[in-house]
């Protein structure tokens, strides 16, 4: 690995406080019957210029469909201005900032970050810079914290056909704390350590959302060829893969660049498309004949000096070009390094090579696309090749399912930010900042220890509750049930219930059940019986009134025992418990049953 490698992280933590700019809950049920259709256009920032990443999205001219689950409202549909910021979310962001040793800004100004890939219905993401200049200690030295921001999460992408994209709005507007580090991360393992440490800090607030993708990280890295931002790394373990894959790619591009330079370079002006559709009538290539049938054309261009670098054992410039065309929803590209093949014969290749005026070191490519797409690609492809060969590699990439990074869009500039004019700046009170600073005085480890002491639970349980983002649930449940039982319920019984039903229960539902149990003066076994019913589809309203969660009385237990065996108690306690369970759907405390059996035995012995 090169000496120039610089790595920084952006860690995103979802909060369970309710949405950031409306009063919708974080959790929702997909309803699916209601959807919206929209288009987006770029808008210019304060200086009047349009951001390059936004302009780029505009050229893609896509349409967006939004599914609207039951935790969405007019704010999510961009049909109403934002409501005031969620104060719990703001307080949590301040606490996290203080814990990371940051300086909190005196005035919080909400900005609009232009994002027109459809992931925000408004065409921008609301984001506020909360604090700057912090640091954390790690095993490999101090890592600077550039900034802590509080932003809205984007809509979740459901499908993408290139020209149209489908999103669900359930996730849109969930508060997201974004923690950005300085490029102080030294290697892949260190990146994982830093991400974990930051994540843990956020989770000790008890406000982190408990969900599969509630913590996500982006990697910023540079090997001296510009900054690459890699998005979409949902698991911490993937950080390592992403960095390795990107490093490999940049080393490959260094080689490609030097090979092409030795050959005399890539003259950008020699790249132009010739429509060769007529040559392919009745072609044996299915990819081409399908395209022609759809009304597309086949375009040919020479790729000067590129023979062998598009696809060989280690050089893969062709894939870089394909990543670009994919962004414009053009899947049909072929280049001479992979031909003959795809139904094209050796003879076809010779004819095309001649037509493109190829000399021995030249390659050619075919693009199957409609006119408008081709005219965009005719300028985009050579421009991108130029960038890659000049090793100007700064861009936004994503970590794909195939375990490699792929082109997403150019890096956005500062032009993409302008003030959210629907919201007034927030001037933080001294008390608010001081209470956050107080929170920040303890380290994450110290807070876990304090949790175990304050609630009289084991250190192990306290640590697991925090690490699994179950602290918020624990704190809420402890107000209804005893802390010890709350911990046991969350860490043992709940996973069992969820595993048995295959359904995961959200925090709000569990807390709702606990409130009902407390309100009905019922106990632990009723709590678990209620959760089991909920996991089988019973509603909270039914839990409020059903008898099915009330424990069996001693009288009724005795009756069942009578039915089972007359007055003679036979079988082991375990067998009897199982037998009683078969005869009733109501919960009962096995200890009660054993007590009854014991007393019967005593009577019988007398």
């Amino acid at each position, binding site marked *: 690995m090169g000496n120039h490698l610089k790595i920084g992280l952006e860690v995103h933590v979802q909060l369970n406080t309710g949405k950031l700019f409306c009063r919708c809950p974080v959790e929702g049920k997909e309803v699916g019957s209601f*959807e*919206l*259709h*929209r*288009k*987006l*256009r*770029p*808008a*210019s*920032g*304060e*200086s*009047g*210029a349009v951001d390059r990443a*936004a302009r780029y999205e505009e050229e893609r001219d896509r*349409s967006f469909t939004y599914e609207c689950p039951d935790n969405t409202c*007019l704010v999510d*549909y*961009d*049909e*109403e*201005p934002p409501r005031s910021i969620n104060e719990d979310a703001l307080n949590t962001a301040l606490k996290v900032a203080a814990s990371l040793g940051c*300086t909190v*800004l*005196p*005035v919080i*100004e909400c*900005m609009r*970050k*232009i994002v*027109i890939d459809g992931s925000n*219905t*408004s*065409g*921008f993401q609301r*984001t506020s*810079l909360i604090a*700057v*200049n912090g640091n954390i200690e790690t095993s490999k030295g101090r890592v600077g914290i550039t*900034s802590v*921001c509080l932003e809205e999460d984007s809509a979740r992408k459901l499908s993408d056909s290139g020209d149209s994209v489908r999103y669900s709005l359930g996730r849109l507007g969930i508060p997201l704390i974004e923690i950005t580090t300085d490029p102080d991360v030294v290697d892949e393992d260190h990146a994982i350590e830093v991400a974990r440490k930051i994540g843990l800090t956020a989770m000790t607030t008890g406000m982190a959302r408990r969900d599969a993708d509630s913590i996500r990280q982006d990697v910023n890295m540079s090997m001296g060829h510009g900054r690459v931002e890699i998005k979409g790394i949902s698991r911490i373990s993937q950080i390592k893969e992403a960095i390795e894959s990107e490093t490999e790619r940049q080393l490959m591009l260094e080689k490609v660049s030097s090979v092409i330079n030795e050959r005399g370079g890539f003259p950008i002006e020699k790249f132009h498309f010739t429509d060769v559709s007529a040559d392919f009538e009745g072609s044996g290539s299915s990819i081409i004949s399908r395209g022609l049938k759809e009304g597309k054309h086949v375009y040919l261009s020479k790729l000067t000096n590129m023979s062998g670098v598009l696809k060989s054992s280690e050089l893969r410039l062709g894939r870089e070009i394909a990543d670009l065309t994919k962004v414009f929803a053009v899947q049909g590209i072929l280049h001479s390094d992979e031909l003959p093949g795809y139904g094209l014969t050796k003879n076809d290749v010779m004819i095309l090579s001649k037509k493109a005026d190829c000399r021995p070191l030249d390659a050619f490519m075919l693009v199957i696309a409609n006119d408008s797409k081709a005219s965009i690609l005719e300028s985009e492809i050579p421009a991108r090749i130029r960038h890659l060969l000049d090793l100007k590699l700064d861009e936004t990439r994503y970590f794909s399912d195939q375990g490699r990074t792929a082109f997403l869009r150019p890096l956005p*500039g*500062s*032009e*993409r*930010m*302008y*003030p959210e*004019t629907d919201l007034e*700046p927030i001037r933080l009170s001294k008390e608010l900042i001081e209470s956050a600073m107080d929170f920040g005085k303890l380290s994450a480890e110290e807070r876990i220890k304090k949790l175990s002491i304050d609630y009289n639970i084991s250190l192990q349980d306290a640590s697991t509750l925090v690490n699994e983002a179950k602290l918020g649930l624990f704190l809420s449940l402890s107000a209804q049930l005893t802390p010890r039982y709350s911990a046991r319920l969350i860490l043992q019984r709940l996973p069992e219930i969820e595993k048995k039903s295959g359904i995961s229960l959200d925090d709000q539902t569990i807390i709702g059940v606990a409130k009902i149990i407390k309100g009905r003066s019922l106990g632990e076994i009723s709590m678990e019986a209620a959760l089991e019913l909920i996991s089988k589809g019973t509603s909270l309203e039914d839990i409020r009134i059903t008898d099915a969660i009330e424990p069996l009385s001693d009288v009724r237990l005795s009756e069942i025992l009578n039915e089972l065996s007359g007055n003679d108690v036979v079988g082991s306690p375990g067998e009897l418990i199982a037998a009683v369970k078969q005869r009733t759907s109501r919960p009962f405390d096995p200890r009660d049953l054993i007590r009854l059996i014991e007393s019967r035995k005593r009577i019988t012995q007398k």
Partner: protein
Amino acid sequence: MLSATAMHYAPERVLADQGVRMTGKEFAEFGTRLKIEHEGQVLEVTFIKRDGDELVFKLPSGYNVRFSFKAVKLVEILEESHGNSKHAMEVATIGSGSRKISLLSTGGTISSKVDYATGAVKPTEDISFILDSIRDIKEKITLKANIIDSILSENMKPDNWIRIGRLVSKALDEEDAVILLHGTDTMSYTASALAFMFEKQRGPIILTGSQRSSDRPSSDAFENIEASVRFSMEQIGEVGICMHASISDGRSTLIRGVRARKMHTTRRDAFRAIESGELGSIIDRKVLLSREIKEPDEETIFSDKLDLAAGIYYFNPLSNEDDLESFSKKKKAVVIMATGLGHVADRLLPKIRELTDEGKHFVITSQCLYGRVDLEVYASGRKLLAAGAVPLENMLPETALAKSMYVLAHHSDEFEKWMTKNLRGEISERSLLGGEL
């Protein structure tokens, strides 16, 4: 005054400036790149503005930060401002097709942009951005855009309607259709007033606006203008309002101005044809016109006379004779928004009788908006009729106001006859079930 050496804005300096409204220019020009020191940290920033006691800077990341004026020390000017590269466009013509369309901008959200110096959304003089949205039909039309005003519609007055009407009338002498960009708040008032003032019109007059300003990527402005251009290609001799038909893009509606009403504060589809009056719709760029649409006239006849002595009185349980009397004082015609079928409290009847006898007109519309008033069903309705009030069937209150102003100016001696006569489709002849309320 700035120098390249470090300068501290001492508290004395600020005190000396108090009482004088300071502008950002006293610190630096918008867009100047600076190196500043704030609480021991040195930052490279772009100056945006001064806001009271705070200075607003943009960080290289794009975030704006606000620091107290006193806490900022200027270290160095890195780069002078290049100024704002945008230039205002007063008149623009696009296309060279046969259909001639005049686009007149009066202001409103549709032609508003963020004013970064103050952070507020304000009407802009520059409307070139909206012309991008009709690229695909450019060859069929010649569209001439003019900025005739720059006001938010809550500030519109009858003077503005008359001025707009004159300009529209002039435009219709030369062009085939007129599109009017207008704020949405009072758009239906303006549309109604124009509908009555244009006794004949040789082409469509279409008002359009937006509920999301055009500085947002999701703005409805682009599609509303595009749809208005498509409607202006059609044979329509009416004043209409063109807006989104749903909260999704891709569906637009054209509503007869006298039957249109803004029914939501923020939604894109806020404008509804109340009971009747949908003149047409556009679904995925295809225009569908209603059969009840009025064809264009041979000529345009515009009358610029309106009588301002009219008003809308909203009856409610607190209403009494005194407030009705003071409200009616300088008015010749009062549109009463009555309850239900068209009722007001018995306690107001003597006053209505008295004022009617003095020559004032009371016309009755309903707060229900949907449905016809009928003063013959209940005793209180009959008493109101007996007191001299005139029921206006299902005419909308705002339309009734505009119509009163027109009728007072043109037919004051036959007020009742003209008010109850259906002039521009302001009364629905049939009571159809229609859509949701």
